[in-house]
């Protein structure tokens, strides 16, 4: 029996995959989207009130990857033996239809334009010698101006709430003064400030900084997007990250794209389909289709396709390239190859501030994307010269709603007892009167921080696990320490009675046991040089031109902002060039 043929196969039913599926079906292509995990829909996953069961949701991690089937191995340095990541902690990849786009918080940034050309920008300002040895600082190969229409499109699809600063050259509002010009305003007004965000706003402003409302893909009003998909308004219940929003207010592929896609007869979504490899021709220059395992029947299936889109989670995209033989694996010793190169993360540290007992912070309310931030220490917005590091962090109060179990676990902050009446008092005091302030910063790429296939460990399907070699480096530790030190005066101005400022420490290795962030990036990055990037500026594989790899894997370094907005814009950008150029004449969009 011949293989089923389809115009395009998409791996992964998250944001990247769903955006590509929508764009390609609009272009008239037949599309099959394969998703490793189960079908997920709001009426089932989001059924109220079961959907806001914290034990089932954030604690037992219902919407996340099942590590008993497949995981990654992790080590800090190249001389160590990596061990499997067996319990979800440091980062939480999604699984099932919607992917990480179903369990995310909803912070929906664009990009700091200079982050897209960070190498050029740092050299222009501080000279090439400013870049430390071993740091692979690179440009994306695409500019903000080129991506702007796609940021705009994504915001309209996501129903993003925010306050603009500049639209078409005119200052229109009280938004982020560091943010670049926009072609249009946000589709929805900014989310209201929580109390904690409002006092941070005042204190930051008084300190001479420039606070702004976080752009949130949590709908501040009911909304119908350009696909006709509807959102309900957010009520600050706080069950965003780790949950399927029962109010249809948090943007997800499931709410904002799939309802329209599912009506298209040219579109097929196959859940429980674990892709084993992209099939290549003998010269390894063209993909012929994909082979996947139906995880229910345990049957291996095969599809033939003209175009293959990898839209899985960052490290799964890299893993699929490595096990399929797409491009040359990165070797840190000889400093050759590109697949696995520039694996990056983010530096995030959460500090806590306690206010007087007469001040109630109402931490039970919140929304994943709402809050107030300052960008005064992000990207290239400040003088790095005397500080001697590359990168930066936004600082924000992003009160996402503290749930009961989380409140009990986090009670008291560092140094307080973990049991007894002192613990109980600290729990009550912390829950009622404290607030969190985060430094959510960049993480640069280094020659000896990378991804490759583990020589020892295999997943249940018999394939080698992906190995992460990652630890914190001096540049990023010092950046984090500097930005956290800037929090202290703001916290004092807020009337702090106690604070627990948390930062990375010199020499501190990456520790997988505590949650940090799921914002992993790089490993199959975009760029303008096939020697140092796996993908060209259209996220097309330099080596296999009918494979496009969409996701944060394309980021040459970890930026201070949350990645989803850039992933969505890059997806629309790639789709635009596939539709307008590639489909007319398939082949490399950039000459190698």
């Amino acid at each position, binding site marked *: 029996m011949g293989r089923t043929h389809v115009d395009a196969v998409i791996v992964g039913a998250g944001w990247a995959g769903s955006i590509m599926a929508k764009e390609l079906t609009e272009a008239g292509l037949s599309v099959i989207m394969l998703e490793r995990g189960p079908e997920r*829909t*709001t009426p089932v996953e989001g059924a*109220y009130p079961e959907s806001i069961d914290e034990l089932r949701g954030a604690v037992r991690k219902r919407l996340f990857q099942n590590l008993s089937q497949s995981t990654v191995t992790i080590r800090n340095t190249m001389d160590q033996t990596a061990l499997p990541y067996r319990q979800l902690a440091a980062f939480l990849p999604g699984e099932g239809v919607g992917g990480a786009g179903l369990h995310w918080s909803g912070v929906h940034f664009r990009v700091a334009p200079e982050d897209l050309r960070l190498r050029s920008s740092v050299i222009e300002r501080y000279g090439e010698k400013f870049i430390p040895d071993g740091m692979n600082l690179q440009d994306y190969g695409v500019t903000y101006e080129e991506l702007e229409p796609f940021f705009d499109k994504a915001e309209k699809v996501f129903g993003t709430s925010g306050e603009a600063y500049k639209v078409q050259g005119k200052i229109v509002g009280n938004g982020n003064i560091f943010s670049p010009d926009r072609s249009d305003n946000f589709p929805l007004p900014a989310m209201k400030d929580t109390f904690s965000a409002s006092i941070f706003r005042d204190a930051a402003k008084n300190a001479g900084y420039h606070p702004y409302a976080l752009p949130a893909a949590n709908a501040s009003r*009911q909304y119908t997007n350009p696909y*006709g998909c*509807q*959102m*309900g308004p957010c009520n600050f219940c706080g069950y965003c990250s780790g949950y399927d929003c029962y109010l*249809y207010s948090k943007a997800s592929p499931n709410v904002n794209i799939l309802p329209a896609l*599912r009506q298209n007869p040219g579109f097929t979504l196959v859940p429980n389909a674990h892709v084993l490899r992209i099939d290549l021709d003998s010269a390894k220059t063209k993909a012929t289709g994909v082979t996947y395992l139906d995880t229910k029947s345990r049957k291996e299936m095969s599809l033939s396709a003209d175009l293959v889109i990898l839209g899985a989670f960052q490290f799964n995209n890299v893993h699929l390239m490595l096990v399929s033989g797409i491009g040359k694996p990165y070797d840190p010793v000889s400093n050759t190859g590109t697949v696995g190169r520039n694996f990056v993360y983010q530096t995030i540290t959460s500090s806590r501030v306690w206010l007087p007992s007469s001040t109630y912070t109402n931490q039970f309310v919140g929304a994943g994307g709402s809050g107030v931030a300052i960008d005064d220490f992000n990207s290239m917005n400040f003088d790095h010269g005397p500080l001697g590091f590359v990168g930066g962090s936004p600082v924000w109060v992003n009160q996402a709603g503290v749930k009961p179990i989380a409140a009990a676990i986090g009670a008291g902050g560092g140094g307080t007892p973990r049991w007894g009446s002192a613990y109980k008092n600290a729990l009550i005091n912390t829950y009622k009167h404290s607030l969190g302030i985060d430094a959510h910063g960049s993480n640069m790429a280094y020659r000896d921080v990378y991804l490759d296939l583990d020589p020892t460990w295999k997943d249940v399907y018999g394939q080698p696990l992906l190995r992460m070699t990652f630890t914190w480096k001096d540049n990023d530790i010092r950046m984090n320490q500097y930005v956290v030190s800037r929090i202290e005066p703001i916290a004092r101005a807020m009337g702090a009675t106690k604070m627990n400022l948390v930062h990375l420490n010199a020499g501190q290795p990456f520790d997988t046991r505590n949650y940090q962030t799921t914002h992993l990036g790089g490993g199959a990055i975009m760029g303008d040089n096939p020697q140092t990037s796996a993908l060209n500026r259209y996220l097309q594989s330099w080596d296999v031109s009918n494979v496009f790899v969409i996701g944060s894997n394309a980021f040459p370094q970890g930026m201070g902002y949350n990645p989803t907005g850039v992933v969505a814009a890059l997806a629309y950008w790639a789709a635009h060039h596939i539709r307008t150029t590639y489909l007319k004449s398939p082949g490399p969009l950039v000459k190698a």
Partner: protein
Amino acid sequence: MKWPLFIACFLGMALTAEATAQDSDKAVVEKGRYLAAASDCAACHSVHGKPEYSGGVSFFLPMGKIYSTNITPDPDHGIGRYTEAQFEQALRQGIRRDGSTLYPAMPFPSYARLTDNDIHALFVYFRDGVEAVPVSAPKNEIPWPLSMRWPLTFWRWAFAPTPHKAITSTAGEFTDPLLERGAYLVEGPAHCGACHSPRAITMQEKALTAHDGSLYLAGGAPVDGWTPPSLRQENRTGLGRWSEEDIVSFLKTGRSNTGSVFGSMTSAILHGTQKLTDNDLHAIAHYLKSLPSADRTQTPWTYDTTITDQLHKADLSSRGARIYVDRCAACHRTDGKGYPAVFPALAGNPVMMQSDAMSLVHIVQKGASLPAMTAAPSSITMPAFSHKLTDQQIADVVTFIRHAWGNNASSVSAEDVRQFSRTMPPPDMADDAVSLN
């Protein structure tokens, strides 16, 4: 003219003629397809997941269970052997090909109004535009002697209008062509009265057209556990406060600023009205807006802030208020205004104020799902509460909603809820098709 050229020209002309004939046949098929949607044939004759129009939808009648028939052009299992005259007789007069009478679940008293032209288009569509499916619908489960069909003939003689009477009695009723078109669609193919008009003890609709008086579309008896509301201009329980745009949006997308679809109407919109042109939807809305209130005693609904103020002050002393705040207010809000057209308003919503609380109780018990429509793909879903709330709690919260924000309907007791549990509807016919979004 040389021969080959002449022949070529002749052939060309012949081909053109044939193409025109095919085009006009195609046009007739398409017209029939449109009318089949307007007549909502699929709601009763199609089962989700099975071939279109192959029948098998069950109907629970007082005397037993009947199934809709296969109306595909299959000669043995469907209607492939029907002539156009026999097809016309079945549709407009309720007479089967074998001469026996159809159960009036088939709305032939309404279809009696269909024009000859429309009958023809429907006939051509069901002959040429529908795939023949060789399956038989299940046998009706009506015990003898009730299974005998001959009494139906007397029913038909007594209560069903002849096509001649149906057409002549309504001819020239409206001078406004929009009203005339709306009346034709509502009274004829769309057969709205089959559910929304009251029926006599002998089961005939008490009024078949606007012409027959104010009982027409004044609200019907429960169907499948749902009580069809009035479509007339009553201020509180009818469409008095719905604009023409609200009605058009409701029929096109299942949702509007004044309410969202639930229950049996879901499939009528999914299979039927969403496929109509905006012009026809406006005609329907225009006509419905022309039907005067059948209840002149209703005082106009106005928003009352008492309950809203209480809830905003955390005063939960009203019966059912706490359950409302815990279970309902996240979407429908403490002010009862919801977030139209995502989460419908309960304040002033006619369904909340129906004298019969059956629909409201059943929505709370089994939940409700908006189907994915072409123009509105989101399947917004309210969860079921029958396994989370006791009968008393449901009675309390439903009573709360019926009394709040200016709503003025009667209280509901736990005993009422228990009674309603017996008629709790089966899953929406459309549910299987829509649960994904």
